[in-house]
Protein backbone atom coordinates (compact mmCIF):
# COMPACT_ATOMS: atom_id res chain seq x y z
CA UNK A 1 0.00 0.00 0.00
CA UNK A 2 1.39 3.36 -0.93
CA UNK A 3 2.37 5.45 2.03
CA UNK A 4 0.73 8.84 2.33
CA UNK A 5 4.05 10.68 2.21
CA UNK A 6 7.30 9.09 1.29
CA UNK A 7 10.78 9.89 0.10
CA UNK A 8 12.93 7.83 -2.22
CA UNK A 9 16.69 8.07 -1.80
CA UNK A 10 16.44 11.70 -0.89
CA UNK A 11 19.81 13.44 -0.75
CA UNK A 12 20.89 16.98 -0.06
CA UNK A 13 24.39 18.44 0.04
CA UNK A 14 25.74 21.93 0.41
CA UNK A 15 29.01 21.65 -1.46
CA UNK A 16 30.98 19.03 0.40
CA UNK A 17 28.58 18.98 3.34
CA UNK A 18 26.01 16.19 3.09
CA UNK A 19 22.99 16.96 5.24
CA UNK A 20 20.70 14.23 3.94
CA UNK A 21 21.92 10.88 2.73
CA UNK A 22 19.77 8.43 0.81
CA UNK A 23 16.72 8.88 2.93
CA UNK A 24 13.87 6.42 2.37
CA UNK A 25 11.20 7.67 4.68
CA UNK A 26 7.55 6.66 4.87
CA UNK A 27 4.72 8.39 6.66
CA UNK A 28 1.53 6.35 6.72
CA UNK A 29 -2.05 7.52 6.79
CA UNK A 30 -3.14 8.36 10.28
CA UNK A 31 0.44 8.03 11.52
CA UNK A 32 1.58 9.33 14.86
CA UNK A 33 5.26 9.42 13.99
CA UNK A 34 8.15 11.02 15.83
CA UNK A 35 11.51 11.99 14.41
CA UNK A 36 14.31 12.17 16.92
CA UNK A 37 18.07 12.46 16.83
CA UNK A 38 20.95 14.55 18.10
CA UNK A 39 21.33 18.19 17.08
CA UNK A 40 22.50 18.57 13.52
CA UNK A 41 21.19 15.13 12.55
CA UNK A 42 19.22 16.62 9.69
CA UNK A 43 15.69 16.42 11.11
CA UNK A 44 14.67 19.94 10.20
CA UNK A 45 16.45 19.52 6.89
CA UNK A 46 14.26 16.54 6.14
CA UNK A 47 11.15 18.56 6.92
CA UNK A 48 12.46 21.35 4.71
CA UNK A 49 12.95 18.83 1.93
CA UNK A 50 9.49 17.36 2.46
CA UNK A 51 7.82 20.76 2.38
CA UNK A 52 9.79 22.16 -0.53
CA UNK A 53 11.72 24.83 1.36
CA UNK A 54 14.87 23.07 0.17
CA UNK A 55 15.24 21.41 -3.21
CA UNK A 56 16.96 18.03 -2.99
CA UNK A 57 20.25 17.24 -4.68
CA UNK A 58 18.87 13.85 -5.63
CA UNK A 59 15.83 11.71 -4.93
CA UNK A 60 12.10 12.24 -4.82
CA UNK A 61 9.30 13.22 -2.50
CA UNK A 62 5.93 11.57 -3.16
CA UNK A 63 2.49 12.25 -1.78
CA UNK A 64 0.09 9.36 -2.38
CA UNK A 65 2.30 8.31 -5.23
CA UNK A 66 2.35 11.74 -6.83
CA UNK A 67 5.85 13.14 -7.34
CA UNK A 68 6.07 16.48 -5.58
CA UNK A 69 9.79 17.00 -5.95
CA UNK A 70 9.49 19.80 -8.47
CA UNK A 71 6.69 21.61 -6.68
CA UNK A 72 7.41 24.74 -4.65
CA UNK A 73 6.35 25.15 -1.04
CA UNK A 74 3.03 26.85 -1.64
CA UNK A 75 1.83 24.20 -4.08
CA UNK A 76 2.67 21.42 -1.63
CA UNK A 77 0.61 23.20 1.00
CA UNK A 78 -2.31 23.15 -1.41
CA UNK A 79 -1.82 19.38 -1.79
CA UNK A 80 -2.22 19.03 1.95
CA UNK A 81 1.18 19.28 3.63
CA UNK A 82 1.46 21.79 6.47
CA UNK A 83 4.29 22.43 8.90
CA UNK A 84 5.29 24.50 11.86
CA UNK A 85 8.74 26.00 12.09
CA UNK A 86 11.33 25.41 14.75
CA UNK A 87 11.50 29.17 15.28
CA UNK A 88 8.12 30.84 15.04
CA UNK A 89 7.29 32.27 11.66
CA UNK A 90 4.38 34.55 12.38
CA UNK A 91 3.10 37.91 11.23
CA UNK A 92 4.45 39.81 14.19
CA UNK A 93 2.71 43.10 13.58
CA UNK A 94 -0.73 41.54 13.13
CA UNK A 95 -3.14 40.25 15.74
CA UNK A 96 -3.43 36.60 16.72
CA UNK A 97 -6.79 36.40 15.01
CA UNK A 98 -5.38 37.96 11.84
CA UNK A 99 -2.60 35.41 11.76
CA UNK A 100 -4.96 32.47 11.80
CA UNK A 101 -7.44 34.27 9.53
CA UNK A 102 -4.83 34.51 6.81
CA UNK A 103 -4.14 30.78 6.93
CA UNK A 104 -7.82 29.81 6.89
CA UNK A 105 -8.56 32.30 4.12
CA UNK A 106 -5.83 30.83 1.95
CA UNK A 107 -7.12 27.33 2.50
CA UNK A 108 -10.63 28.34 1.55
CA UNK A 109 -9.30 30.02 -1.58
CA UNK A 110 -10.44 33.39 -0.30
CA UNK A 111 -6.94 34.84 0.08
CA UNK A 112 -6.97 36.45 -3.32
CA UNK A 113 -10.43 37.93 -3.05
CA UNK A 114 -10.25 41.67 -3.77
CA UNK A 115 -13.77 42.96 -3.81
CA UNK A 116 -15.31 42.01 -0.50
CA UNK A 117 -13.84 43.17 2.79
CA UNK A 118 -12.04 40.59 4.87
CA UNK A 119 -14.40 41.34 7.70
CA UNK A 120 -17.41 40.15 5.71
CA UNK A 121 -16.15 36.57 5.51
CA UNK A 122 -17.90 35.46 8.67
CA UNK A 123 -17.07 31.85 7.90
CA UNK A 124 -13.35 32.52 7.96
CA UNK A 125 -13.60 34.59 11.13
CA UNK A 126 -15.67 31.90 12.84
CA UNK A 127 -13.28 29.13 11.90
CA UNK A 128 -10.26 31.14 12.96
CA UNK A 129 -11.90 31.99 16.26
CA UNK A 130 -12.71 28.32 16.78
CA UNK A 131 -9.08 27.38 16.29
CA UNK A 132 -8.04 29.97 18.82
CA UNK A 133 -10.44 28.44 21.32
CA UNK A 134 -9.03 24.97 20.71
CA UNK A 135 -5.62 26.31 21.66
CA UNK A 136 -6.93 28.46 24.52
CA UNK A 137 -5.78 31.58 22.70
CA UNK A 138 -9.12 33.37 22.50
CA UNK A 139 -8.14 35.73 25.30
CA UNK A 140 -5.27 37.01 23.19
CA UNK A 141 -7.19 37.10 19.93
CA UNK A 142 -6.97 40.86 19.58
CA UNK A 143 -3.39 41.27 20.68
CA UNK A 144 -0.46 41.60 18.32
CA UNK A 145 2.01 38.76 18.14
CA UNK A 146 4.96 40.79 19.39
CA UNK A 147 3.03 41.54 22.58
CA UNK A 148 2.72 37.86 23.50
CA UNK A 149 5.14 35.69 25.43
CA UNK A 150 7.05 33.25 23.25
CA UNK A 151 5.16 30.20 24.49
CA UNK A 152 1.80 31.66 23.44
CA UNK A 153 3.26 32.64 20.09
CA UNK A 154 4.22 28.99 19.66
CA UNK A 155 0.58 28.03 20.08
CA UNK A 156 -0.37 30.51 17.36
CA UNK A 157 2.13 28.75 15.12
CA UNK A 158 0.26 25.50 15.77
CA UNK A 159 -3.11 27.16 15.18
CA UNK A 160 -2.00 28.34 11.76
CA UNK A 161 -0.95 24.82 10.77
CA UNK A 162 -4.26 23.44 11.99
CA UNK A 163 -6.10 26.11 10.06
CA UNK A 164 -4.71 24.65 6.87
CA UNK A 165 -6.60 21.37 7.54
CA UNK A 166 -3.72 19.37 6.13
CA UNK A 167 -3.52 15.68 5.36
CA UNK A 168 0.04 15.65 6.57
CA UNK A 169 1.12 17.75 9.54
CA UNK A 170 4.82 18.23 10.27
CA UNK A 171 5.57 19.80 13.64
CA UNK A 172 9.13 20.96 14.23
CA UNK A 173 9.77 20.95 17.98
CA UNK A 174 6.28 22.19 18.80
CA UNK A 175 6.80 22.06 22.56
CA UNK A 176 10.03 24.07 22.54
CA UNK A 177 9.42 27.31 24.35
CA UNK A 178 6.03 26.37 25.76
CA UNK A 179 6.12 26.54 29.56
CA UNK A 180 5.28 23.23 31.22
CA UNK A 181 2.16 24.75 32.75
CA UNK A 182 0.74 25.18 29.26
CA UNK A 183 2.12 22.12 27.52
CA UNK A 184 -1.09 20.21 28.14
CA UNK A 185 -2.79 22.60 25.73
CA UNK A 186 -0.47 21.41 23.01
CA UNK A 187 -0.90 17.78 23.94
CA UNK A 188 -4.68 18.07 23.95
CA UNK A 189 -4.61 19.76 20.56
CA UNK A 190 -2.47 17.01 19.08
CA UNK A 191 -4.58 14.31 20.69
CA UNK A 192 -7.66 15.94 19.24
CA UNK A 193 -6.41 15.83 15.66
CA UNK A 194 -8.52 13.85 13.20
CA UNK A 195 -7.41 10.26 12.99
CA UNK A 196 -6.84 10.35 9.22
CA UNK A 197 -4.18 13.06 9.42
CA UNK A 198 -0.62 11.83 9.36
CA UNK A 199 1.38 13.65 12.01
CA UNK A 200 5.16 13.81 12.24
CA UNK A 201 6.75 15.47 15.25
CA UNK A 202 10.38 16.43 15.66
CA UNK A 203 11.03 16.57 19.35
CA UNK A 204 13.68 16.43 22.01
CA UNK A 205 11.18 16.08 24.84
CA UNK A 206 11.19 12.29 25.25
CA UNK A 207 8.18 12.39 27.51
CA UNK A 208 6.12 13.89 24.75
CA UNK A 209 7.62 11.58 22.16
CA UNK A 210 6.84 8.37 23.95
CA UNK A 211 3.35 9.47 24.92
CA UNK A 212 2.48 10.53 21.40
CA UNK A 213 4.32 8.31 18.98
CA UNK A 214 3.20 5.04 17.51
CA UNK A 215 6.33 4.91 15.41
CA UNK A 216 9.75 6.53 15.87
CA UNK A 217 12.49 7.30 13.37
CA UNK A 218 15.96 8.08 14.62
CA UNK A 219 18.25 10.19 12.45
CA UNK A 220 21.96 10.61 12.89
CA UNK A 221 24.32 12.61 10.65
CA UNK A 222 21.85 13.02 7.85
CA UNK A 223 20.79 9.39 7.57
CA UNK A 224 18.10 7.23 9.13
CA UNK A 225 19.71 5.32 11.93
CA UNK A 226 16.83 3.27 13.25
CA UNK A 227 13.09 3.02 12.90
CA UNK A 228 10.33 1.18 14.67
CA UNK A 229 7.67 1.20 17.37
CA UNK A 230 8.57 3.07 20.59
CA UNK A 231 9.29 0.00 22.67
CA UNK A 232 11.73 -1.26 20.09
CA UNK A 233 13.52 2.07 19.85
CA UNK A 234 13.67 2.49 23.60
CA UNK A 235 15.20 -0.93 23.90
CA UNK A 236 17.68 -0.44 21.07
CA UNK A 237 21.08 -0.27 22.67
CA UNK A 238 22.75 1.54 19.81
CA UNK A 239 20.09 4.24 19.83
CA UNK A 240 20.50 4.67 23.52
CA UNK A 241 24.21 5.01 23.09
CA UNK A 242 24.06 7.52 20.33
CA UNK A 243 21.24 9.67 21.53
CA UNK A 244 19.23 8.78 24.53
CA UNK A 245 22.33 8.38 26.63
CA UNK A 246 22.19 6.23 29.66
CA UNK A 247 19.05 7.86 31.05
CA UNK A 248 16.25 5.42 31.58
CA UNK A 249 13.26 6.02 29.40
Amino acid at each position, binding site marked *: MAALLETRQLCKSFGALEVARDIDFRLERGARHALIGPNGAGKTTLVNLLTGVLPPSRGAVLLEGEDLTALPQ*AKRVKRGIARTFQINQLFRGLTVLDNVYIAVAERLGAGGSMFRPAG*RRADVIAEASGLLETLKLEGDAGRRIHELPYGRQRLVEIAIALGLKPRVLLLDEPAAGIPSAESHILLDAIAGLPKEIAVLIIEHDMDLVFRFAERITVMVSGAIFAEGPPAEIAGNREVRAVYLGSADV
Partner: protein
Amino acid sequence: MTAPAGPGLAAARALADRHRVKWWEAAPWLAGVALFFFLPSYLAFGTQLVIAILFALSLDLVMGYAGIVTLGHAAFFGAGAYTVGMLAAHAGWNEPLSGLVAAALVAGAIGLASGYVLLRTQGLTLLMLTLCTMALLEESANMAHEYTGSFDGMPGLQFQAILGLFPFDLLYYRSQYLYALVVLFVCFVVVRMLVYSPFGQSLTGIRENVLRMHAVGAPVRARLVIVYAISAAIAGVAGALFTQANAYVNLATLGLDRAAGVLIILILGGYGRLYGAFVGAIAYMVLEHVLARAYPTTWQLGVGLLLIAVALYARNGILGIADALWRRLRAAVAR
Protein backbone atom coordinates in the same frame (compact mmCIF):
# COMPACT_ATOMS: atom_id res chain seq x y z
CA MET B 1 -19.34 25.89 15.81
CA THR B 2 -20.30 27.95 18.83
CA ALA B 3 -19.81 31.69 18.70
CA PRO B 4 -16.66 32.91 20.45
CA ALA B 5 -17.16 34.53 23.83
CA GLY B 6 -15.47 37.36 25.73
CA PRO B 7 -12.25 38.79 24.32
CA GLY B 8 -12.42 36.36 21.43
CA LEU B 9 -15.76 37.81 20.45
CA ALA B 10 -14.43 41.33 20.78
CA ALA B 11 -11.54 40.53 18.47
CA ALA B 12 -13.83 38.86 15.95
CA ARG B 13 -16.11 41.87 15.99
CA ALA B 14 -13.17 44.23 15.56
CA LEU B 15 -12.05 42.28 12.50
CA ALA B 16 -15.55 42.22 11.08
CA ASP B 17 -15.89 45.98 11.53
CA ARG B 18 -12.46 47.00 10.40
CA HIS B 19 -13.58 48.06 6.96
CA ARG B 20 -16.48 50.17 8.12
CA VAL B 21 -16.19 53.82 7.21
CA LYS B 22 -15.36 55.92 10.25
CA TRP B 23 -16.76 59.40 10.66
CA TRP B 24 -13.41 61.14 10.35
CA GLU B 25 -12.76 59.54 6.97
CA ALA B 26 -15.00 62.22 5.49
CA ALA B 27 -12.60 64.91 6.70
CA PRO B 28 -10.09 64.94 3.83
CA TRP B 29 -12.87 65.19 1.26
CA LEU B 30 -14.69 67.93 3.12
CA ALA B 31 -11.38 69.77 3.40
CA GLY B 32 -10.82 69.24 -0.29
CA VAL B 33 -14.16 70.73 -1.20
CA ALA B 34 -13.68 73.52 1.32
CA LEU B 35 -10.42 74.48 -0.37
CA PHE B 36 -12.34 75.01 -3.58
CA PHE B 37 -14.71 77.48 -1.99
CA PHE B 38 -12.55 79.24 0.57
CA LEU B 39 -9.12 79.39 -1.04
CA PRO B 40 -9.83 79.72 -4.75
CA SER B 41 -6.47 81.30 -5.46
CA TYR B 42 -4.68 78.16 -4.35
CA LEU B 43 -6.38 75.74 -6.71
CA ALA B 44 -3.31 75.32 -8.91
CA PHE B 45 -1.34 74.25 -5.86
CA GLY B 46 -4.29 72.17 -4.72
CA THR B 47 -4.34 70.32 -8.03
CA GLN B 48 -0.65 69.44 -7.77
CA LEU B 49 -1.34 68.33 -4.21
CA VAL B 50 -4.17 66.02 -5.24
CA ILE B 51 -2.01 64.51 -7.97
CA ALA B 52 0.81 63.96 -5.49
CA ILE B 53 -1.59 62.25 -3.08
CA LEU B 54 -2.81 59.93 -5.81
CA PHE B 55 0.73 59.04 -6.82
CA ALA B 56 1.74 58.42 -3.21
CA LEU B 57 -1.36 56.29 -2.70
CA SER B 58 -0.30 54.07 -5.58
CA LEU B 59 3.13 53.70 -4.04
CA ASP B 60 1.60 52.83 -0.68
CA LEU B 61 -0.13 49.84 -2.23
CA VAL B 62 3.11 48.46 -3.50
CA MET B 63 5.53 49.57 -0.82
CA GLY B 64 3.45 50.22 2.28
CA TYR B 65 1.30 47.12 2.03
CA ALA B 66 3.21 44.63 -0.12
CA GLY B 67 6.64 45.69 1.04
CA ILE B 68 8.21 46.08 -2.40
CA VAL B 69 10.88 48.76 -2.09
CA THR B 70 11.07 50.56 -5.40
CA LEU B 71 12.93 53.67 -6.52
CA GLY B 72 11.43 53.49 -9.99
CA HIS B 73 7.74 54.15 -9.50
CA ALA B 74 7.94 57.32 -11.54
CA ALA B 75 8.22 55.02 -14.56
CA PHE B 76 4.47 54.49 -14.37
CA PHE B 77 3.66 58.09 -13.56
CA GLY B 78 5.62 59.15 -16.61
CA ALA B 79 4.14 56.40 -18.75
CA GLY B 80 0.65 57.67 -17.99
CA ALA B 81 1.71 61.27 -18.46
CA TYR B 82 3.27 60.63 -21.85
CA THR B 83 0.45 58.41 -23.03
CA VAL B 84 -2.01 61.24 -22.58
CA GLY B 85 0.44 63.79 -23.97
CA MET B 86 1.27 61.84 -27.08
CA LEU B 87 -2.33 60.89 -27.74
CA ALA B 88 -3.29 64.53 -27.54
CA ALA B 89 -0.39 65.89 -29.56
CA HIS B 90 -0.07 63.26 -32.26
CA ALA B 91 -3.31 61.30 -32.48
CA GLY B 92 -5.67 64.16 -31.88
CA TRP B 93 -7.18 62.19 -29.04
CA ASN B 94 -7.68 64.68 -26.28
CA GLU B 95 -10.86 63.59 -24.55
CA PRO B 96 -9.79 63.61 -20.92
CA LEU B 97 -11.72 60.72 -19.38
CA SER B 98 -10.80 58.20 -22.04
CA GLY B 99 -7.29 59.56 -21.81
CA LEU B 100 -7.22 58.53 -18.16
CA VAL B 101 -8.35 55.06 -19.09
CA ALA B 102 -5.71 54.78 -21.80
CA ALA B 103 -3.02 55.95 -19.40
CA ALA B 104 -4.13 53.43 -16.79
CA LEU B 105 -4.04 50.64 -19.36
CA VAL B 106 -0.60 51.53 -20.71
CA ALA B 107 0.96 52.06 -17.30
CA GLY B 108 -0.74 48.96 -15.95
CA ALA B 109 0.54 46.88 -18.85
CA ILE B 110 4.09 48.10 -18.28
CA GLY B 111 3.63 47.36 -14.59
CA LEU B 112 2.38 43.88 -15.32
CA ALA B 113 5.23 43.07 -17.69
CA SER B 114 7.98 44.55 -15.58
CA GLY B 115 6.50 43.17 -12.36
CA TYR B 116 6.28 39.69 -13.81
CA VAL B 117 9.91 39.81 -14.72
CA LEU B 118 11.38 41.84 -11.86
CA LEU B 119 9.54 40.36 -8.91
CA ARG B 120 11.49 37.18 -9.26
CA THR B 121 14.28 39.05 -7.52
CA GLN B 122 14.42 40.83 -4.20
CA GLY B 123 16.47 43.18 -2.08
CA LEU B 124 19.19 45.17 -3.77
CA THR B 125 18.76 43.41 -7.11
CA LEU B 126 15.08 44.34 -7.21
CA LEU B 127 15.79 47.90 -6.19
CA MET B 128 18.41 48.15 -8.91
CA LEU B 129 16.11 46.71 -11.52
CA THR B 130 13.32 49.13 -10.69
CA LEU B 131 15.82 51.95 -11.17
CA CYS B 132 16.98 50.41 -14.44
CA THR B 133 13.45 50.07 -15.76
CA MET B 134 12.69 53.69 -15.00
CA ALA B 135 15.97 54.83 -16.52
CA LEU B 136 15.22 52.74 -19.59
CA LEU B 137 11.85 54.42 -20.02
CA GLU B 138 13.38 57.82 -19.46
CA GLU B 139 16.02 57.19 -22.10
CA SER B 140 13.41 55.89 -24.54
CA ALA B 141 11.38 59.02 -24.07
CA ASN B 142 14.51 61.06 -24.54
CA MET B 143 15.42 59.21 -27.71
CA ALA B 144 12.00 59.46 -29.32
CA HIS B 145 12.24 63.19 -29.32
CA GLU B 146 10.01 63.71 -32.34
CA TYR B 147 7.22 62.22 -30.28
CA THR B 148 8.12 63.36 -26.83
CA GLY B 149 10.01 66.57 -27.27
CA SER B 150 12.85 65.20 -25.14
CA PHE B 151 14.06 67.62 -22.50
CA ASP B 152 11.75 70.38 -23.57
CA GLY B 153 8.76 68.13 -23.23
CA MET B 154 5.47 68.84 -24.91
CA PRO B 155 4.09 72.19 -23.89
CA GLY B 156 0.86 73.74 -24.98
CA LEU B 157 -1.27 70.62 -25.07
CA GLN B 158 -4.97 71.11 -25.49
CA PHE B 159 -7.71 69.00 -24.00
CA GLN B 160 -11.42 68.87 -24.51
CA ALA B 161 -13.74 69.89 -21.76
CA ILE B 162 -14.45 67.27 -19.12
CA LEU B 163 -17.72 65.56 -19.98
CA GLY B 164 -18.03 68.29 -22.56
CA LEU B 165 -19.10 70.69 -19.84
CA PHE B 166 -16.10 71.81 -17.81
CA PRO B 167 -13.26 73.27 -19.80
CA PHE B 168 -9.69 73.17 -18.56
CA ASP B 169 -8.61 76.52 -17.28
CA LEU B 170 -4.91 77.15 -16.97
CA LEU B 171 -5.34 80.40 -15.13
CA TYR B 172 -7.35 79.42 -12.10
CA TYR B 173 -7.35 75.62 -12.35
CA ARG B 174 -10.98 75.45 -11.24
CA SER B 175 -12.09 72.52 -13.34
CA GLN B 176 -8.76 70.77 -12.96
CA TYR B 177 -8.95 70.82 -9.21
CA LEU B 178 -12.41 69.32 -8.89
CA TYR B 179 -11.68 66.89 -11.70
CA ALA B 180 -8.53 65.70 -9.96
CA LEU B 181 -10.34 65.52 -6.62
CA VAL B 182 -13.07 63.32 -8.10
CA VAL B 183 -10.52 61.06 -9.77
CA LEU B 184 -8.62 60.82 -6.49
CA PHE B 185 -11.82 59.88 -4.72
CA VAL B 186 -12.63 57.13 -7.16
CA CYS B 187 -9.11 55.70 -7.04
CA PHE B 188 -9.10 55.99 -3.27
CA VAL B 189 -12.28 53.96 -3.02
CA VAL B 190 -10.63 51.27 -5.12
CA VAL B 191 -7.45 51.27 -3.04
CA ARG B 192 -9.41 51.21 0.19
CA MET B 193 -11.42 48.26 -1.02
CA LEU B 194 -8.25 46.38 -1.94
CA VAL B 195 -6.59 47.15 1.36
CA TYR B 196 -9.45 45.83 3.45
CA SER B 197 -10.02 42.75 1.32
CA PRO B 198 -8.41 39.36 2.04
CA PHE B 199 -6.10 40.17 -0.88
CA GLY B 200 -4.91 43.29 0.90
CA GLN B 201 -4.41 41.37 4.09
CA SER B 202 -2.34 38.77 2.28
CA LEU B 203 -0.13 41.57 1.01
CA THR B 204 0.51 42.63 4.59
CA GLY B 205 1.31 39.01 5.34
CA ILE B 206 3.81 38.95 2.49
CA ARG B 207 5.42 42.09 3.81
CA GLU B 208 5.58 40.84 7.38
CA ASN B 209 6.77 37.29 6.72
CA VAL B 210 7.05 36.02 3.19
CA LEU B 211 8.26 32.58 4.29
CA ARG B 212 5.09 32.13 6.33
CA MET B 213 2.95 33.16 3.37
CA HIS B 214 4.55 30.47 1.26
CA ALA B 215 3.97 28.06 4.12
CA VAL B 216 0.22 28.74 4.14
CA GLY B 217 -0.02 28.07 0.45
CA ALA B 218 -0.35 31.63 -0.81
CA PRO B 219 0.72 32.27 -4.43
CA VAL B 220 3.09 34.99 -3.33
CA ARG B 221 4.58 36.04 -6.64
CA ALA B 222 1.22 36.17 -8.39
CA ARG B 223 -0.15 38.45 -5.66
CA LEU B 224 2.86 40.74 -5.89
CA VAL B 225 2.66 41.01 -9.65
CA ILE B 226 -1.05 41.80 -9.49
CA VAL B 227 -0.66 44.55 -6.92
CA TYR B 228 2.33 45.93 -8.81
CA ALA B 229 0.25 46.17 -11.98
CA ILE B 230 -2.70 47.78 -10.19
CA SER B 231 -0.39 50.25 -8.49
CA ALA B 232 1.25 51.04 -11.83
CA ALA B 233 -2.15 51.73 -13.37
CA ILE B 234 -3.07 54.14 -10.59
CA ALA B 235 0.30 55.87 -10.86
CA GLY B 236 -0.40 56.16 -14.58
CA VAL B 237 -3.70 57.87 -13.83
CA ALA B 238 -1.86 60.34 -11.60
CA GLY B 239 0.57 61.03 -14.41
CA ALA B 240 -2.27 61.48 -16.87
CA LEU B 241 -3.92 63.98 -14.53
CA PHE B 242 -0.61 65.84 -14.38
CA THR B 243 -0.43 66.22 -18.14
CA GLN B 244 -4.08 67.15 -18.51
CA ALA B 245 -4.14 69.62 -15.64
CA ASN B 246 -0.92 71.37 -16.57
CA ALA B 247 -1.23 71.00 -20.33
CA TYR B 248 2.35 69.85 -20.64
CA VAL B 249 4.58 66.87 -19.95
CA ASN B 250 8.35 66.52 -19.81
CA LEU B 251 11.07 64.07 -18.86
CA ALA B 252 10.96 65.07 -15.24
CA THR B 253 7.83 62.95 -14.88
CA LEU B 254 10.05 59.92 -15.42
CA GLY B 255 13.02 60.98 -13.34
CA LEU B 256 14.71 59.95 -10.13
CA ASP B 257 13.68 63.23 -8.54
CA ARG B 258 10.02 62.42 -8.86
CA ALA B 259 10.51 58.82 -7.76
CA ALA B 260 12.47 59.88 -4.72
CA GLY B 261 9.98 62.65 -4.02
CA VAL B 262 6.99 60.35 -3.82
CA LEU B 263 8.96 57.97 -1.62
CA ILE B 264 9.75 60.81 0.77
CA ILE B 265 6.11 61.91 0.84
CA LEU B 266 4.88 58.44 1.70
CA ILE B 267 7.46 57.82 4.39
CA LEU B 268 6.84 61.22 5.89
CA GLY B 269 3.14 60.58 6.19
CA GLY B 270 3.42 56.96 7.22
CA TYR B 271 3.29 53.99 4.87
CA GLY B 272 0.85 51.11 5.12
CA ARG B 273 -1.76 53.36 6.67
CA LEU B 274 -3.94 54.38 3.73
CA TYR B 275 -3.98 58.06 4.81
CA GLY B 276 -0.23 58.42 5.03
CA ALA B 277 -0.26 59.57 1.42
CA PHE B 278 -2.62 62.43 2.32
CA VAL B 279 -0.74 63.55 5.39
CA GLY B 280 2.68 63.20 3.79
CA ALA B 281 1.77 65.02 0.60
CA ILE B 282 0.17 67.90 2.45
CA ALA B 283 3.06 68.26 4.88
CA TYR B 284 5.75 67.96 2.24
CA MET B 285 4.20 70.15 -0.41
CA VAL B 286 3.16 72.89 1.95
CA LEU B 287 6.64 73.01 3.41
CA GLU B 288 8.16 72.88 -0.05
CA HIS B 289 5.90 75.64 -1.29
CA VAL B 290 6.90 77.87 1.59
CA LEU B 291 10.58 77.04 1.94
CA ALA B 292 11.90 75.68 -1.32
CA ARG B 293 11.17 78.78 -3.37
CA ALA B 294 13.25 80.96 -1.14
CA TYR B 295 16.06 78.65 -0.19
CA PRO B 296 16.19 75.58 -2.45
CA THR B 297 19.53 74.28 -1.22
CA THR B 298 18.65 74.70 2.42
CA TRP B 299 15.39 72.94 1.64
CA GLN B 300 17.35 70.01 0.25
CA LEU B 301 19.49 69.98 3.37
CA GLY B 302 16.40 69.99 5.53
CA VAL B 303 14.76 67.15 3.63
CA GLY B 304 17.94 65.12 3.94
CA LEU B 305 18.14 65.67 7.68
CA LEU B 306 14.47 64.86 8.00
CA LEU B 307 14.90 61.58 6.18
CA ILE B 308 17.81 60.62 8.41
CA ALA B 309 15.75 61.44 11.47
CA VAL B 310 12.77 59.49 10.19
CA ALA B 311 14.88 56.46 9.35
CA LEU B 312 16.40 56.47 12.81
CA TYR B 313 13.51 57.52 15.01
CA ALA B 314 10.19 57.74 13.23
CA ARG B 315 9.92 54.89 10.80
CA ASN B 316 6.17 55.11 10.70
CA GLY B 317 6.02 58.75 9.77
CA ILE B 318 3.66 61.40 11.03
CA LEU B 319 0.73 59.02 11.35
CA GLY B 320 2.92 56.61 13.25
CA ILE B 321 3.85 59.31 15.74
CA ALA B 322 0.22 60.33 16.01
CA ASP B 323 -0.75 56.72 16.57
CA ALA B 324 1.79 56.28 19.34
CA LEU B 325 0.68 59.49 21.04
CA TRP B 326 -2.97 58.47 20.76
CA ARG B 327 -2.25 55.12 22.35
CA ARG B 328 -0.35 56.75 25.21
CA LEU B 329 -3.23 59.14 25.72
CA ARG B 330 -5.74 56.33 25.89
CA ALA B 331 -3.57 54.35 28.28
CA ALA B 332 -3.18 57.38 30.51
CA VAL B 333 -6.92 58.05 30.48
CA ALA B 334 -7.71 54.43 31.22
CA ARG B 335 -5.77 54.55 34.46
